[in-house]
């Protein structure tokens, strides 16, 4: 098992190198002058482009430039992001916790309701529970995320005024940037509680609800389907008949016996979905103006902020491999056949 994890960890640099090099290679399609102009803040310096090109070696061979970027990364320097107006590393550090927080809350919703609906749907096959679950699932698949996001905004923000999009309230900003507020984890949801700031907690949570609901719908639909088919398959297996023949209650047969087997594919899926959410919050964060790395990535792309884009994809690549590894480890925790082999 440890060897397996080690082997997977070896894969990590390969994926990260591959992704970032590909992006790096693509940015070379821009002329050195265009790239140099990104370093220039003052329009009056535009005539000094040639010097910038020389200074940063923008005409060098792509491998040499990539090597230089890597060397800087190794020193913790991901470059300066003009779009965020701060070093890329600092921007990622600031925005990532908010995204993880969003993805995590979403995942809790997805797994909890997905497993519940999926299992109920399989157990009551062709009854009303099944029909409802399948309708929701089909709806979730066919509703584009931006349509749902805008709908929710219209209803809950425009009509009902329950939740608010955009940044946190001014009071929240004042408190969290104030001297008394200690940062423990970087996750505002947790830090606010640790600081005993209930109002901040409430404000942060209310900013999470709509994006999380929007974000969860696609994964939820998939989760219901996977759980349903997995559960149906398990329920038809021989050991379920054995469990019934032993005189176990329906609850034990369904949840303890079939459920424990049916959940195995769901766990892998949940891991992959979580990662997908981390890198795929772009649309939702943009719609709700949520301060996460997705929004950072979009702004960087819009403003041709090469350092920002590279930093964003660098992070997403790492998360991707790490997440897959995590779900594999979870998988083995549930399935003894893999754990003990």
């Amino acid at each position, binding site marked *: 098992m440890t060897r397996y994890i080690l082997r997977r960890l070896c894969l990590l640099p390969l994926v990260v190198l591959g992704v970032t090099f590909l992006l790096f290679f693509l940015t070379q399609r821009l002329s050195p002058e265009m790239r140099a102009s990104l370093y220039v803040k003052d329009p009056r310096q535009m005539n000094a482009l040639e010097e910038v090109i020389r200074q940063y070696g923008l005409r060098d061979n792509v491998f040499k430039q990539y090597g230089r970027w890597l060397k800087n990364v190794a020193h913790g320097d991901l470059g300066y992001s003009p779009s965020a107006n701060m070093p890329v590393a600092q921007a990622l550090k600031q925005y990532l916790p908010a995204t993880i927080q969003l993805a995590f809350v979403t995942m809790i919703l997805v797994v909890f309701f997905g497993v519940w609906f999926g299992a109920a749907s399989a157990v009551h096959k062709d009854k009303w529970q099944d029909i409802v679950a399948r309708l929701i699932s089909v709806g979730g698949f066919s509703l584009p995320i931006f349509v749902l996001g805008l709908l929710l905004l219209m209803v809950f923000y425009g009509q009902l005024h329950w939740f608010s999009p955009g940044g946190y309230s001014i009071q929240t900003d004042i408190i969290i940037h104030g001297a008394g507020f200690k940062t423990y984890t970087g996750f505002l949801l947790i830090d606010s509680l640790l600081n005993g700031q209930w109002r901040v907690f409430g404000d942060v949570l209310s900013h999470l609800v709509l994006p999380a609901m929007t974000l969860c719908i696609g994964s939820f639909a998939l989760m219901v389907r996977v759980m349903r088919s997995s559960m149906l398959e398990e329920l038809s*297996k*021989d*050991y379920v*008949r*054995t*469990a*019934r*023949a*032993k*005189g*176990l*209650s*329906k609850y*034990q047969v369904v949840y*303890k*016996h079939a459920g*424990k*087997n049916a959940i*195995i594919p769901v766990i892998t899926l949940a891991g992959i979905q979580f990662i997908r959410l981390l890198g795929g919050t772009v649309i939702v964060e943009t719609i709700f103006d949520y301060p996460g790395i997705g929004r950072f990535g979009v702004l960087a792309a819009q403003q041709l902020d090469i350092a920002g884009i590279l930093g964003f994809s660098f992070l997403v690549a790492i998360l991707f491999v790490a997440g897959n590894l995590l779900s594999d480890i979870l998988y083995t925790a*549930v*399935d*003894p*056949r893999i754990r*003990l082999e």
Partner: protein
Amino acid sequence: MTEPILRVENLSLSFVTENGTVPVLHHLSYSLPKGKILAVVGESGSGKTVQALSILKLLAPNARVDSGKVIYRGKNLLACKENTLRNVRGSKIAMIFQDPGSSLNPVLTIGEQLTETLRAHRKMSQEAARKKAAQLLTQVGITEAEKRLTEYPFQFSGGMCQRVMIAMALALDPDILIADEPTTALDVTIQAQILTLIKELQRQNGMSVIFITHNLAVAAQVADEVLVLYAGQCMELAPAPDLFAKPLHPYTQGLLSSLASVTHKAQRLPVIAGTPPRPGEIVKGCPFAPRCTQATTKCFETCPPLFAQKSRQVRCYLQEAQ
């Protein structure tokens, strides 16, 4: 003749499919004597497994009981509520299945699967259940029981899995054990061991056993009585020694003589021509008539009833006169 422990009366069953209703059992009746082994012999599609599953109402959702009763201790199990049945399942009537590997839950330890059976029916502490589980494993011939309780089914061979299934079935001293092709998936040497084990435990506990098999030779090893099923109907029901010494139904005769033997080399095997009717095929008259060498026009017109003859019953007009 002792009072039977279980009586199946006039049981008819069918499956409801997209293409209509497919009858699988026709008016099956038999009784299981206390402390005896009844072998139910039949080919695939004969209804032998279905009738066994119906005793505990473990049938697939699309199965429909058309008529009949299963009487156990004065109660008709087919009319019982799920809760009542649950108290019978595993504790009074236990069951083991054909494929021991897939009949155990792959992600639960052997210990967990054994103790949960015990705890489902008896108030028992986890420790006491575990102790009893270890005892049971030892009883079915599994060594190092304590250690093996912590293992998973995939760490057991097929024969060992079947031993675990047997231990699980015997956990609560049931009155009846239903064994559905328990040795079909096993090698001959392992099969011999499992058969011996079942017989031994049956004698020790005074259990009654319904032993389902397609293999007449296996039935001959264990059975006190044999019921031969064909196309969902009882063809012949007789004490085992009588049946093997002198089979009365042409189907039983054909089956017995078509078996290849290890002890002598046959030049040709006597065969039963044709194939068994497919499920759902409408058969007028005796279902075996199309394959029977002794069939008369009468056989094709109306199905013979069961003719009783001392301790045996045969569904064949040839036995009518006697």
